[in-house]
């Protein structure tokens, strides 16, 4: 059959994958702590039909050969860990990380996941939990009757008990960093898991040793840029159309030969 059919088919499926990442980015444009994905394309292997320098007669040779490409593939998607913009909420349990680092979340199965989404709440036991009810790690319990909860930029959580003048220290929020954050595996619910590629977590105090600092009463919005995504969507759509045009052209060629011979 016509090889161009298969080559354009790789083009079509790659553009399809790209559109999926773009639509996922756009769908999460309002998700707190979301990091956008970029699809990485690479050309596929080239097939050598004829090497340059082949002899065309006993004493002459061809100056160039024929190497045909076999299309394109998506190598993978990379998460872009650039900073999203800050949004003021004034809620005492909203946290935004400015700079590197991720918050640790204890999952029910005993493992630890990581997030940049700092929308925390207090459960019935007074523990700080995410919107899904997973515990913040290290666990911090807020006793009853605490007013004026303060979370410092270094992660110290403190508050004052009603009727007592002294500030009471309740706990310390630590951040973790990875040598290759792009290697983290997104598992949904705004959570990431460490992988072989991300390396081991490096725990640190917010604001120290290159770790980002915490901002209370703020949230980090998604780092998706709508204009960029829409422009990418246009180029992806047009590239898709052109590849499908090649498919229909190749189809017409095959149709023409089978009808005319």
């Amino acid at each position, binding site marked *: 059959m*016509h090889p161009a059919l298969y080559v354009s088919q790789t083009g079509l499926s790659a553009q399809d994958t790209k559109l999926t990442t773009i639509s996922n980015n756009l769908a999460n444009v309002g998700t707190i702590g979301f990091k956008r994905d970029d699809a990485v394309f690479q050309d596929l292997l080239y097939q050598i039909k004829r090497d340059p320098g082949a002899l065309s007669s006993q004493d002459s040779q061809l100056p160039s050969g*024929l190497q045909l490409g076999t299309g394109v593939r998506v*190598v993978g998607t990379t998460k872009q860990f*650039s900073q999203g913009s800050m949004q003021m909420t004034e809620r005492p349990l909203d946290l935004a990380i400015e700079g590197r680092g991720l918050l640790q979340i204890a999952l029910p199965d005993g493992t630890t996941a990581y997030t940049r989404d700092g929308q925390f709440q207090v459960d019935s036991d007074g523990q700080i939990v995410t919107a899904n009810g997973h515990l913040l790690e290290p666990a911090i319990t807020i006793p009853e009757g605490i007013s004026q909860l303060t979370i410092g930029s270094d992660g110290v959580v403190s508050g004052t008990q009603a009727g007592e003048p002294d500030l009471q220290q309740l706990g310390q929020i630590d951040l973790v960093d990875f*040598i*290759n954050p792009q290697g983290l595996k997104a598992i949904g619910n705004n959570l990431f898991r460490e992988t072989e590629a991300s390396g081991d977590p490096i725990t640190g105090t917010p604001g120290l040793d290159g770790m980002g600092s915490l901002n209370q009463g703020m949230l980090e919005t998604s780092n998706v840029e709508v204009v960029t995504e829409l422009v990418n969507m246009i180029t992806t759509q047009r590239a898709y159309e*052109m590849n499908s045009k090649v498919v229909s052209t190749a189809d017409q*060629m095959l149709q023409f*030969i089978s009808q005319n011979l």
Partner: protein
Amino acid sequence: MDKALYIAMTGAKQNMFAQRAHSNNLANVNTTGFKEDFAQARSMPVYGEHFPTRAYSMTERPGTSFEQGPLQETGNNLDIALKGDGWIAVESPSGEEAYTRAGDLQIDVNGMLRTGAGMPVLGEGGPIALPPASSVEIGSDGTISILPLGAGVGLAQVDRIRLVNPDPKDLEKGDDGLIRLKDGALAAEVDDSVQVESGFLEGSNVNSVASLTEILSLSRQYELQVKLMSQADQNSEASARLLQFS
């Protein structure tokens, strides 16, 4: 049988090869740093002891267009594009030096700087490995400076990306899509005039309109060859009819 049939057949067959080269260009119209391949046809006379009327057609790839692709802003510090001529040196899977213009760099778990396709980027002394850093900056001459984790202020220079600019006529595209020096070409030297723009990526240099037009024109050319083939068929049918006993 009329030999014109075979000549038309090679024409149609080689048209399909050229078609494939162009469709590969179009499939890579969104691939970072992709360089468009040319396709051309050559007439190939048949040598031998006979009347020299036959010349078959032959499609070949005479080279790759090294024209610069459009620069796209990404805002990512580790995305680099080259302004003007030049190449980023990477280590190919077989261990030798190869070149690319796809500058979507990443840092892996061991601190190695790699392209989006996973090739280690070469520096002044082999593949570049970066210590843990809170930020990485790439200067206009390929110098990499980092802000080490926990070091407070002050950028430290670690390495410099090996940027080269060999004569384009010494370069060819390998079967893995990386650019390599041709056999017998002089080893490439570091070229200080190659300019890096950080925060940008170079798009594919495929001209989609030209490629699509080329594909359409090739498809018409192909129909012409097929028409000739059916013509040759009709000719021999007519002569067969003349010779038939009826």
